[in-house]
């Protein structure tokens, strides 16, 4: 049982935590290891420790915006590959790519090494979600059935049209919208919230945004993410579960959000 789960929102909720956590397989779909330009860092041991403390079974992991490596992310992707090779049952590697730099060789190399997806960051690498260079990467991912996790949070705005363009052009592309596209959430939900291959991850959301997300979007479209080391796994999990309970989501629905929705992409 998790450290915090002994607390209930109301007495009526007694028992729901037990039902949620019974045999639950938690997947955190938004974690980083490495060092970021802004000073945040986390190593593999630190991530695994946090996962164990919080009861997370598997994490999708990718590099931070590491100084000196963001041109092609080769060095950072190496580190991710090494970590995931050592902890195959715990970590799912995503490669980071820079659309402004020749990426095809890096993409092929990481594919061969068993990387399971691509992480893109439009603000850090300064590109638009709907730009031609980014679309080329989506095409490669779609052809190779690799999911793309794209940052859709801080530093961006008015992204709904671009997200729609991406999903419409590549209908088979599996997309995880990082931070649930909270900067333009209503519009993004309207445009792509019904699409089968799109998930909204819950990382680093304010509770109000989380509330809106769970209220407005089908629970099959939501995936738990923490954004560690920027955010705490425990708090991310607690906020998500309690908000879902508050919105009268049932245990089986919350269990899907906590892992099942994203796990089906990696079977």
């Amino acid at each position, binding site marked *: 049982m998790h450290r915090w789960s002994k*607390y*209930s*929102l109301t007495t009526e909720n007694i028992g729901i935590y037990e039902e949620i956590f019974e045999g639950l397989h938690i997947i955190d779909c938004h974690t980083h290891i490495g060092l970021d330009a*802004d*000073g*945040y860092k986390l190593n593999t041991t630190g991530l695994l420790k946090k996962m164990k403390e919080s009861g997370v079974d598997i994490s999708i992991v990718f590099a931070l915006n590491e100084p000196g490596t963001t041109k092609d992310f080769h060095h950072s992707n190496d580190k991710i590959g090494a970590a995931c090779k050592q902890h195959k049952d715990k970590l799912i590697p995503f490669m980071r790519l820079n659309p402004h730099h020749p990426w095809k060789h890096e993409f092929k190399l990481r594919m061969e090494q068993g990387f399971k997806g691509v992480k893109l960051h439009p603000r850090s690498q300064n590109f638009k979600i709907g730009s031609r260079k980014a679309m080329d990467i989506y095409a490669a991912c779609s052809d190779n059935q690799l999911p793309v996790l794209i940052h859709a*949070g*801080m*530093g*961006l*705005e008015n992204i709904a049209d671009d997200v729609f363009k991406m999903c419409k052009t590549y209908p088979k592309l599996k997309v995880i919208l990082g931070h649930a596209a909270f*900067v333009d959430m209503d519009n993004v939900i309207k445009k792509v919230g019904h699409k089968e291959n799109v998930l909204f991850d819950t990382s*680093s959301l*304010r*509770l109000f945004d989380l509330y809106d997300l769970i209220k407005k979007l089908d629970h099959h479209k939501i995936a738990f993410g923490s*954004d560690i080391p*920027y*955010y*705490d796994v425990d*708090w991310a999990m*607690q*906020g998500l579960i*309690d908000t879902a309970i*508050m919105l009268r989501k049932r245990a089986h629905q919350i269990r899907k959000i906590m892992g099942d929705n994203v796990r089906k992409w990696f079977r």
Partner: protein
Amino acid sequence: MVSLRKDIKINLNKFLDFVISKDELYINEKIIYYIRLYTDLVRAEENLAGGFNRMLNYLRIVRNMAKQATFREEEVYFQRIYDIAHEIIGNQAKIRRAASKLKPGDAYSDPLGARTRMQLAQNICILRVMKREVK
């Protein structure tokens, strides 16, 4: 007449004690404390772009309040809020440099993760208000 008033007063006090139990009073005080913290955290966040010194002032208030809180069962939560405020204040030089490039009112930039950290602290406050249990 005087005696009747006294009786009414005594009974009213008993009634209030009955209606608002000590537990309830305690919970209310705790909620108000968290709301005060939350409000200052929101003000701090609002000032990240264009009012850095004001942001620091609000964070100092938050840090002090978190340190001085007397709700023993909430210690772990106040400690977390304290740590967040303390960390941002400690990194103020770096964050100030990054934040100086922001336009006033920019609500979506996150220099050195400072906004995300403040939002985490806000979320902790809201979660604790939602849970409102007494130990």
